[in-house]
């Protein structure tokens, strides 16, 4: 049960086998989190640098908790208080940190491909915590873990992502991961926020929310950002809610057992109403718990399991 990849840069090209390995390990890690002492010594002595070029409280905290639960040493590096403000390049920043002997870098950066670039510069294992609008693999994995938990399987399930797809790394990673595991994927949102030729990824583009609701088993509701108004992408949050918001009334048009996800933070009353977010079909808080478990699983699997040494199983 080993991973065939050395870094987690995205889910594009990652096999179903590897995804299943991660999700299975995450299930076990979740059990560890439920123990009276939710800590194991597995990564003792390993150092993880959380390199966050973009602010993100929840993702960083989730990674930090995962690292600490595995007894790793964590170092946090955020750009507001750092050398980056003085003009240091990404490469120099990481080379300086690496010179202090680290094992993992967890990076969030605003530019697509930045974690690929990093993986070429350093010896440490790289985990992409979000590279611009490109990918956010740990988020998609925790989404998939939550869906699998609630629905039993991913195969054949119809999952639809709703919202600003163009700028969403969550949606891209989810598309790659879900397709790899045999799910059927759709996206729904304003036409100005669906990227060019996205159906060529092997997914369905629903121009209207009603069609998505009728067909989907799972809805992953994405956050809509106010700033997009300025780019002539949509007029107001009010209009967005009228056309795409997941309200209680809309939920009634959906399948009766539909599962609702949201990566957070939520704009209550915009893309999702409180009654839905706090209702029985939403698994949003499970996503948060599973986030720590999935991140523990990834750090654990990337570090070890690389060699199979015959003759060492009885000790």
């Amino acid at each position, binding site marked *: 049960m080993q991973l065939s990849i050395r870094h987690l840069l995205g889910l*594009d090209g990652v096999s179903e086998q590897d995804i299943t390995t991660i999700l299975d390990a995450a299930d076990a890690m979740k059990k560890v989190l439920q123990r009276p002492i939710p800590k194991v010594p597995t990564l003792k002595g390993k150092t993880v640098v959380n390199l966050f070029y973009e602010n993100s409280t929840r993702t960083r905290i989730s990674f930090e908790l995962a690292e600490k639960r595995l007894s790793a040493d964590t170092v946090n590096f955020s750009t507001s208080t750092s050398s980056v403000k003085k003009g240091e*390049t*990404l*490469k120099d920043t990481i080379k300086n940190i690496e010179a202090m002997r680290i094992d993992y870098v967890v990076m969030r*950066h*605003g*530019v*697509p*491909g*930045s974690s*690929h*670039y990093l993986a070429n510069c350093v010896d440490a294992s790289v985990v992409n915590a979000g*590279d*611009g*609008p*490109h*990918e956010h693999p740990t988020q998609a994995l925790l989404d998939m873990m939550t869906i699998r938990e609630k629905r039993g399987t991913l195969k054949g399930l119809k999952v639809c992502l709703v919202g600003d797809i163009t700028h969403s*790394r969550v949606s*891209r990673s989810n598309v790659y991961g879900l397709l790899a595991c045999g799910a059927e994927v759709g996206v729904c949102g304003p036409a100005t926020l669906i*990227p*060019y*030729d*996205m159906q*060529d*990824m092997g997914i369905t583009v629903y121009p209207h929310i009603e069609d998505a609701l009728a067909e989907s088993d799972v809805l992953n509701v994405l956050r809509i950002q106010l700033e997009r108004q300025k780019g002539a992408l949509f007029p107001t949050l009010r209009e967005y809610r009228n056309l795409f918001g997941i309200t209680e009334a809309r939920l009634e048009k959906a399948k009766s057992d539909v599962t609702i996800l949201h990566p957070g933070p939520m704009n209550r009353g915009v893309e999702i109403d409180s009654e839905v977010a706090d209702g029985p079909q939403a698994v949003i808080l499970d996503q948060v718990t599973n986030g720590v478990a999935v991140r523990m699983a990834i750090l654990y699997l990337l570090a070890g399991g690389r060699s199979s040494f015959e003759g060492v199983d009885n000790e």
Partner: protein
Amino acid sequence: MNSKIFKAEAADCILLKGGRLVDPQTGTDEKADLLIESGKITKIGKIDEKTIEGRVVDCKGKIIAPGFIDMHVHLREPGEEHKETIESGCNAAMNGGFTGVAPMPNTTPVTDQRNHVTFINRQAKGHLVDVYPIGAITKGLKGEELAEMGEMKVEGAVAFSDDGRPVESGQVMRRAMEYGNMLGAAIINHAEDLAITGAGVMNESFSSTETGFRGIPSVSESAMVARDVLLAEFTRCPVHIAHVSTKESVRLIRDAKSRNVKVTAETCPHYLTMTDKAVKTFNTNTKMKPPLRTEEDRLALIEAVADGTIDAIATDHAPHHEDDKDNDYHSAAFGVIGLETAVGVVLDRLVQSGQLTLETMIERFAVAPRRIFHLPEVKLETGSEASLTLLDTEKKWTVKGREFASLSFNTPFEGWALTGGPAGVINKGQLYLND
């Protein structure tokens, strides 16, 4: 840049023995010896080397063609000599099989006055490679007032462009075309609607959807090409479109030519051999403007180069220092070098594959640039200037940017295994042979 010295040797008398002479201007394609004396072709036919006192070059298996000119390069001097100088750029041209280059004016300071052209001429003096300066259309490339094109032309500027930037104002572009026509100098536009481009870094297509990068839609180029060909039609003045990259631009140019509008165009080897799928590797040497486009665009461009809709192949050689490229994709500078790969890439990927004939290739590299710049013709006949490019269609080599004469090594073709490349160049009584 590597430590090898790239130097031409002076030779007043050169005998090229046993080469295959190919010239689409005269319909020549024959094996013959060619004698050069004091910079001119003096004899073609069977020449006994024992009767010659001069340099004898064995050209068996090589092709001899009129000298290639790269009509679109950036030489970075004055202002960014760490990326390239006029000398290193000329060395790169020489090593790449070119006898002439036309550098764009977006240097620091901008080439928008006569004395700037004087400087370029001075820096270029004595080199085997001819430098044909391109002056700015507008002062400081600001796009507002016309620069002193007349003055610059006197000093030797052959054409004018604001390249790097488009001439955004249709009004200024119209006046520039009228003025350039009056002077008999080409006006070259970098066709790009900057507002549509926005913050884009790659072509807008399925590839940009996959990577999450902001895209530069093809219409950013074609909308302005449409404007320019219509202006050319209205003013009855010529216009030259730089680095064409889209099938829509090809369509517009083909249509304009069918109406006898005086439009000419160029494209680059990378648009003919690469697509935006290459950006998925996040290699910053796939980042340039205009960006790599789709396979459909690539095929349309090859067809256009073959049928003459696109007149010339130029490289848009844009050297950048490692510091400007070795970074994340957003931060990396736009641009790739091309002088030392153009001939090999076109020979290997387009001529060997049968998509372009050798004659067409020579037309695009050697004949069209001279026509567009109103330079004297160079033909493979006695009496002509001996500006020659030698080609080796058999030589096998691998592209290694760090071994180039250019000071920079930002090539998108790194590692490509090619069959075919330049064998040498002859110009103004100097000879350079590739090893």
